[in-house]
C-alpha cells in the first residue's frame, strides 16, 4: 500500500514540476514536444544544476584545503552535513505542511481502509526523495574534492555513501515536526494567514542568520581551527561521528551516527502517525463573522478580476511569501543602500579603482568594462533590480491556480484577453511598485542629477517586470496543470514558475555577458542599458500581441 501511495505522491510531485507528463514533454493535443523545446527546457534545468554544483564546489574547495591541511578532515564532512541539514529543513518545512497536513486528498484516503501510518509514511518518503535531490547537489562536489585530494579510503567511501542515505532523515524529522507545530499554531489563530506569514518570515530570518554565522565560522576556522573544532565536536557529537567515520574510515562511528540519524526519524514518524488523523482532519472552530449588509458598489470588470487575484494572493501566507519574497528583498536592499550610501559608493569606487590598476597591468578588456560599469552604475543597478524581480513569478502560476474553478471564468461574459491581462496586471501590481521605489532610492543615492541614468534605472527594470509577467503567463498557458493536490504545488513546484525564473535569470546573465564580452567595447554601460530597454520593449509588445490573440484563444480552449 505504501508503494502505491508513494507512487501517487511522486506522480503528483513530478507532474506539478512537469519534469514528465504532458507539460514539458507534450504539446497541446498530445503531440511530443519538439527537439528545440526539449533542449531549451533541459538546458535551463542543467544550467541551474550546474550553478548550484559550482556554488557548493567553491565552498567545499575552500574548506577542503584548509581543514585537511590542519588535520581536521572530519570537520569537512561535518560542515557538509550542516549545509545538507539546513538546506533540507528550510526547503521542506512548508512542503511538509502542505503535503502532510493540508493535502486535499487526506480525508478521502483516511476514509479508505488504509492505515494512517501508511498514508503518512508515503507522504514522508516522497519528501525524502526531494531531500535526496537537494543533498546530491551538496554531496557531489564534496565527494569529488575529497576523492581528488587523495584523502579517501575504501571504508571511508562506504561510510560516505551510508551517510548520504542517512543524513536527510534527521532533517526530515525536524521539518515534519516544525510543520506539525506550524499547522497546530496556525489552526488556532483567527488570522491564520498573518500568523503563518509571520512564522514563515521568522524561519527565514533564522535561516539567513544561520547562513551568515556559518560563513563567519568558516572564516574563523582558519585562525583558530582546533579550538573551534573542539567546540563543534562537543556541541554536535552526531556530526563528529559522521565526519570522523568518513575521514578516518571508522565503521563504529558510522554505526553511532546511523543510530543518531534513524532514532529521531522513527520517533517523529511514530509521533505523527499517532496524531495524523487528528492533525489532518481537525478544524479548530474560528469565531463566526456575522454578515452585515453594506451598500454595494459596482466596479469595472477589470477591477473585479484584479481584486479576485488579490483575494487569492492574500488567502494563503505561502502565496504571499513565494510571490513577494523578491519584492521584500528589493525593498530591504534599497533601504540598506540609502542607509549605507557612503560605504556602498566607496566600495564601488574602490573596486573600480582596483580594476583600473589590474587593467593597466594586464590589459584585460573585460575588467576595464566591468570597471566602467561600476563608475557609471546605472546598468549594474538595473541588472541587480532585475535579478531580484526575477524571483517573483506570480503570473506563471495564475492559470494553473484556477484549478476546478476555471468553469467560472469560462462561463461568464468576459473576454479571455481581459482575464489574461488582469493576471499580468496583478503581477505588475505586486512587483512593479517595490522595484520602482528601489529604482528611485538607488537613483537618489548613486546617480545624483544624471537624468539618463535615473530614467534608465526606472524604465529598464519596469520593462523587464512586464516581460516576466507576460512571459510567465504565456508559459503557464502553454503548460497549465489543474490536477494539483495542494494549491502550493503550482506556486512552488510548477514548471512554468521554474522556467520563468530561470529564463529571467539567464536573460540577465546573458545581457551582462554580452556587455562585458562584446558590446562594452563599442558603447558605454548606460547606452547598452538603453539598447537593452529597446529590445525588452520590443519583446514586451510582441508578447502582448501574442497574449491578446493566440494566448486568449489558448485560454478559451482550456478544458473547464
Amino acid at each position, binding site marked *: 500500500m505504501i508503494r502505491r501511495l508513494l507512487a501517487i505522491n511522486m506522480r503528483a510531485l513530478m507532474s506539478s514540476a512537469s519534469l514528465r507528463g504532458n507539460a514539458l514533454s507534450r504539446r497541446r493535443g498530445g503531440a511530443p514536444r519538439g527537439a528545440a523545446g526539449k533542449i531549451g527546457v533541459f538546458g535551463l534545468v542543467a544550467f541551474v544544476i550546474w550553478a548550484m554544483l559550482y556554488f557548493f564546489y567553491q565552498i567545499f574547495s575552500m574548506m577542503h584545503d584548509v581543514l585537511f591541511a590542519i588535520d581536521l578532515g572530519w570537520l569537512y564532512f561535518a560542515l557538509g552535513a550542516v549545509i545538507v541539514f539546513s538546506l533540507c529543513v528550510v526547503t521542506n518545512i512548508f512542503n511538509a505542511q502542505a503535503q502532510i497536513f493540508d493535502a486535499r486528498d487526506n480525508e478521502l484516503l483516511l476514509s479508505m481502509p488504509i492505515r494512517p501510518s501508511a498514508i503518512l509514511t508515503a507522504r514522508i518518503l516522497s519528501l525524502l526523495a526531494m531531500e535526496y535531490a537537494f543533498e546530491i547537489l551538496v554531496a557531489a562536489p564534496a565527494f569529488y574534492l575529497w576523492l581528488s585530494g587523495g584523502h579517501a579510503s575504501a571504508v571511508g567511501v562506504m561510510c560516505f555513501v551510508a551517510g548520504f542515505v542517512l543524513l536527510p532523515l534527521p532533517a526530515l524529522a525536524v521539518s515534519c515536526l516544525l510543520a506539525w507545530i506550524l499547522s497546530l499554531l496556525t489552526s488556532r489563530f483567527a488570522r491564520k494567514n498573518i500568523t503563518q506569514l509571520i512564522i514563515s518570515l521568522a524561519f527565514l530570518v533564522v535561516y539567513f542568520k544561520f547562513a551568515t554565522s556559518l560563513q563567519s565560522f568558516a572564516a574563523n576556522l582558519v585562525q583558530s581551527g582546533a579550538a573551534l573544532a573542539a567546540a563543534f565536536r562537543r556541541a554536535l557529537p552526531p556530526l563528529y561521528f559522521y565526519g570522523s567515520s568518513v575521514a578516518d574510515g571508522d565503521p563504529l562511528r558510522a554505526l553511532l551516527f546511523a543510530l543518531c540519524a534513524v532514532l529521531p526519524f522513527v520517533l517523529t514518524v511514530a509521533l505523527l502517525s499517532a496524531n495524523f488523523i487528528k492533525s489532518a482532519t481537525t478544524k479548530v472552530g474560528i469565531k463566526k463573522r456575522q454578515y452585515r*449588509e453594506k*451598500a454595494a458598489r*459596482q466596479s469595472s470588470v477589470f477591477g*473585479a478580476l484584479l481584486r479576485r487575484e488579490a*483575494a487569492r494572493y492574500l488567502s*494563503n501566507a505561502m502565496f504571499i511569501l513565494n510571490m513577494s519574497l523578491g519584492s521584500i528583498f528589493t525593498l530591504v536592499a534599497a533601504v540598506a543602500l540609502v542607509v549605507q550610501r557612503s560605504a556602498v559608493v566607496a566600495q564601488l569606487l574602490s573596486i573600480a579603482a582596483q580594476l583600473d590598476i589590474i587593467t593597466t597591468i594586464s590589459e584585460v578588456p573585460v575588467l576595464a568594462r566591468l570597471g566602467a560599469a561600476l563608475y557609471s552604475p546605472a546598468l549594474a543597478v538595473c541588472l541587480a533590480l532585475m535579478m531580484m524581480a526575477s524571483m517573483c513569478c506570480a503570473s506563471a502560476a495564475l492559470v494553473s491556480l484556477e484549478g476546478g474553478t476555471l*468553469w*467560472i471564468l469560462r462561463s*461568464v*461574459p468576459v473576454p479571455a484577453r481581459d482575464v489574461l491581462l488582469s493576471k499580468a496586471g496583478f503581477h505588475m501590481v505586486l512587483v512593479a511598485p517595490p522595484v520602482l521605489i528601489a529604482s528611485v532610492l538607488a537613483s537618489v543615492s548613486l546617480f545624483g542629477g544624471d537624468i539618463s541614468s535615473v530614467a534608465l534605472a526606472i524604465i529598464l527594470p519596469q520593462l523587464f517586470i512586464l516581460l516576466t509577467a507576460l512571459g510567465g503567463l504565456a508559459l503557464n498557458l502553454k503548460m497549465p496543470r489543474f490536477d494539483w493536490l495542494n494549491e502550493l504545488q503550482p506556486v512552488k513546484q510548477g514548471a512554468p514558475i521554474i522556467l520563468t525564473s530561470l529564463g529571467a535569470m539567464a536573460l540577465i546573465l546573458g545581457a551582462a555577458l554580452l556587455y562585458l564580452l562584446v558590446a562594452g567595447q563599442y558603447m558605454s554601460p548606460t547606452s547598452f542599458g538603453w539598447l537593452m530597454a529597446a529590445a525588452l520593449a520590443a519583446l514586451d509588445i510582441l508578447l502582448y500581441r501574442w497574449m491578446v490573440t493566440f494566448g486568449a484563444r489558448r485560454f478559451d480552449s482550456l478544458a473547464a
Partner: protein
Amino acid sequence: MLKIEGLTKRFGDKLAVDNLTLSVNPGELYGFIGHNGAGKSTTIKAICGLLTPDAGEITVGGYSITREPLEAKRLLAYLPDNPDLYNFMTGIKYLNFIADVYGVPAVERRECIREYGDLFELTGELAQPVSSYSHGMKQKLALISALLHAPRLMIMDEPFVGLDPKASKAVRDILRGVCDNGGAVFFSTHVLEVAEKLCDRVAIISRGRLVASGGMEEVLGSESLEDVFFELEARATPSEMQ
C-alpha cells in the same frame, strides 16, 4: 431561446455527443435525461461555451455561442453539477464578483442577494469564507450568483443534487418563475420524478444520441417517464451489450 443543431463532440476516439438537435422555446422548462456518461454534461458545457463543438451550431437568444460568445453568455446562467467556487473569497465577495462581471447595478444586486439569501437561509453565512461551506451551501451560493443578472436562459447540470427538501422546492419555484417571465430553463437530471412533475418538455439522450424529445404527453403517452426511459435505453443499447 436555445437552438442546438447537429451538435457533435468527440474526445479522442470516443463520440460523446452525436449529431444532437433540439430547441428550447421561451417559457419552457426543458428536462434533459440520460444515464451516466450519456453526453448530458458535454452537451451542457458546449451550450455554455466551455467546450468547443467539433460540428454543429448552438445559438442562445439568436447569438452563436462560438461566434458571439459574449453576447450569448450575457443571456445565460450556468450551474454545474458540483460547483467548485472560489474558496478564497467570502460568500458575499463571490456574489459581488459575479455581479461586477455581469455589470449588475448596486441596488439591484443588493435586493437580489437579500431576497435569495433569505429564501435559501444563506444570508447569515455570507461573511464566511466559501471554503467553510457545505456542498449544499455552495450549491445555493452558485444558484444565487446565477440569478443575479436575471438570466433569460438557465442551464443547469443536476441542480437538485445536494439540496435539502426546502431548498429543492424553492429552486423549483424559482425555475418556474423564470419561465413564467418569458425565460427558459434547460437542466439535466437523474431524478425522473422531478422531470416528470416539473418539465414542459423533455429530451432523452443515450450514448450521445437523442432518442426522444418533445412535450411530456408526446414523449410519455400513457406510460410513466421511468418506463419510457428504460424502454428507450434498452432500444438504444446495442444487443451485444445487453
